């Protein structure tokens, strides 16, 4: 499962950077692999809990073996659906797949009452909201971005000042999330003041002087693109990190459930997710990126032609912020949704030259079918396992 996530979804995180020719596919694989692992290992904890426990009512599963079989069924179902969908080029969400899978076996075992529909509704709502928030975020960031650089009298000069500002801002978010996720800080204010802002300032200063030393060109457009080509490597890394934090839960949640049964003989107890399971998930994602993600990103790098570095930066920055914020709130959201939302947001700000409307429609359809399809596959596998087991 983790491999499938790495192969499919994780490649997305770097795709804008590769597409805008900021880095080569090979570099992307290394960066994405490392950061996905880091994100999964350090940032992945609270989301893992949400998916494992939130969807089904654990008190209704009396037989621990049901949890084991069910988790295996959910994992297999999600993996199968992910591979099938990828074969047909459908951009399905791993989060949807696994949640569909969990709900599927739950319904087969104990009927619809076992599913926590309130929680399910909340999760579905976050799927609907994440592209919308992604779009709004990207719209305003892109607007602010163009206003601060291209609409000035001297775009070269504004680019020198504002580019470090935007890059610094991205690091404020990264720093804050580092505090909340890695150090398990509770107070957002402390995170922003003690970690986010200092890191942002350091990055701002470093970037400011780097740009001052050599601004690539006297043409603001060429120059700005060149700055953001480098910044995009960082923001893409940031997306990969955020992605690892969120999506490791998909692969690991059910594994953690199995682990809980295996070690304590009981399901549904409050068990911390052991680090090594997170590491396993992170490793799976990283291997997925390296084995299959390479090919995917190479294709992307050669085929996406109309994505510039500034837009790529805006998409990455908005998507990552939304994904990390959701991760902080413990809501499982899809990177794909948020990125698609961000792309549309930039389109609405008239920054994108051409988006394929048909594909946007297909994506939205696939978002809706994933949960039921993964649920059905999981239900079937679960039935077979129960009969055989």
């Amino acid at each position, binding site marked *: 499962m983790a491999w499938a996530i790495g192969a499919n979804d994780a490649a997305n995180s770097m795709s804008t950077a590769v597409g805008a020719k900021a880095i080569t596919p090979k570099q992307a694989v290394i960066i994405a692999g490392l950061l996905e692992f880091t994100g999964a290992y350090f940032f992945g904890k609270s989301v893992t809990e949400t998916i494992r426990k939130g969807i089904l009512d654990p008190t209704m599963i009396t037989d621990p073996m049901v949890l084991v079989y069910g988790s295996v069924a959910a994992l297999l179902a999600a993996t199968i659906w992910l591979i099938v969908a990828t074969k047909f080029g459908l951009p399905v969400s791993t989060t949807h797949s696994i949640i569909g899978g969990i709900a599927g076996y739950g319904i087969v075992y104990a009927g619809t009452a076992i599913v926590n529909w309130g929680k399910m509704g909340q999760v579905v709502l976050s799927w609907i909201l994440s592209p919308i928030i992604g779009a709004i975020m990207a719209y305003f960031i892109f607007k602010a971005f163009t206003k601060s650089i291209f609409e000035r009298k001297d775009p070269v000069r504004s680019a020198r000042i504002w580019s470090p500002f935007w890059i610094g801002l991205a690091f404020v978010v990264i720093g804050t999330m580092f505090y909340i996720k890695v150090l398990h800080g509770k107070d957002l204010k402390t995170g922003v003041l003690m970690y986010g802002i200092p890191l942002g300032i350091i990055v701002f200063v470093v970037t400011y002087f780097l740009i001052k030393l050599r601004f690539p060109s006297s043409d603001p457009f060429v120059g700005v693109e060149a700055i953001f080509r480098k910044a995009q490597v960082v923001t893409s890394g940031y997306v990969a990190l955020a992605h690892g934090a969120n999506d490791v839960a998909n692969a690991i949640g059910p594994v953690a459930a199995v682990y809980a049964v295996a070690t304590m003989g009981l399901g549904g107890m409050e068990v911390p997710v052991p680090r090594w399971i997170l590491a396993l998930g992170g490793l799976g994602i990283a291997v997925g990126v390296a084995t299959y993600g390479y090919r*995917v990103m190479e294709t*992307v790098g050669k085929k*996406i032609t109309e994505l510039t570095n500034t837009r790529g930066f805006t998409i990455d920055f908005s998507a990552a912020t939304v994904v990390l914020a959701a991760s902080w709130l413990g809501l499982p959201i899809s990177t794909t949704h948020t990125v698609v939302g961000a*792309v549309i947001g930039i389109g609405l700000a*008239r920054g994108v030259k051409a988006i394929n409307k048909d594909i946007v429609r297909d*994506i939205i359809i696939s978002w809706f079918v994933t949960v039921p399809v993964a649920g059905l596959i999981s239900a079937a596998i679960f039935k077979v396992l129960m009969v055989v087991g």
Partner: protein
Amino acid sequence: MQVWTKLFAKSPFKPLIKHSEVVLNTVETLERALQAWHSGNYGEMERLAIEVDRLEDVADRIKEEIRDSLSSKLMMAVAREDVLIYLHMQDKVADAAEDTAKWLLVKRPGELPAEIKELILQMGTESIKAAKLVHEAIVQMDRVIESGFADGEIEKEYGLIRKIESVEKEIDGLDTRLMQLVLENAENLSWGDGFYVLNIARTLSNISDKAKDAAERIRLMMNK
């Protein structure tokens, strides 16, 4: 992932710029043909006029390709209709250049008054200016989109459009002046030469007319 390769369609703006480069090349070749014509080097003139014809074909092919790729499935920063009509107008600039080249090919001029020859050459130079400005305008349009429709970039674009309009006006004046000259020299010119000269002038002023139409379409692209 496959979807990312599909999500971002190829924007028509780079191909539009490529088309405009060919159009510009067509008009520049015509200018050289006119210079050869002016200096009486008719062999060279014919070679260049044939080249104009060939370049116009190239522009046509690019135009077809852009049309085929520009489906209504695209969400673009500017209206699809505006892009298509703009493309049509830009292509007309090359067509008009080809028309002039045809006139150069069908007849070698007899003895023409120097004034008329000068004026024709001047009209040629001016229409190249208009075509060059159209090229600059579409490159600038790309930047307008790049900047997310920044005011400064839009202002630069308006500046270019105004320049195209003033060049067109100037050529209109030259056109009228040429008509007068031909009629004033009615006795020195054969019927055929007069007809020939007036048609060259008409097709030349067509180049700037179409350039102006193209510029107006760009204005519409920015207004939405």
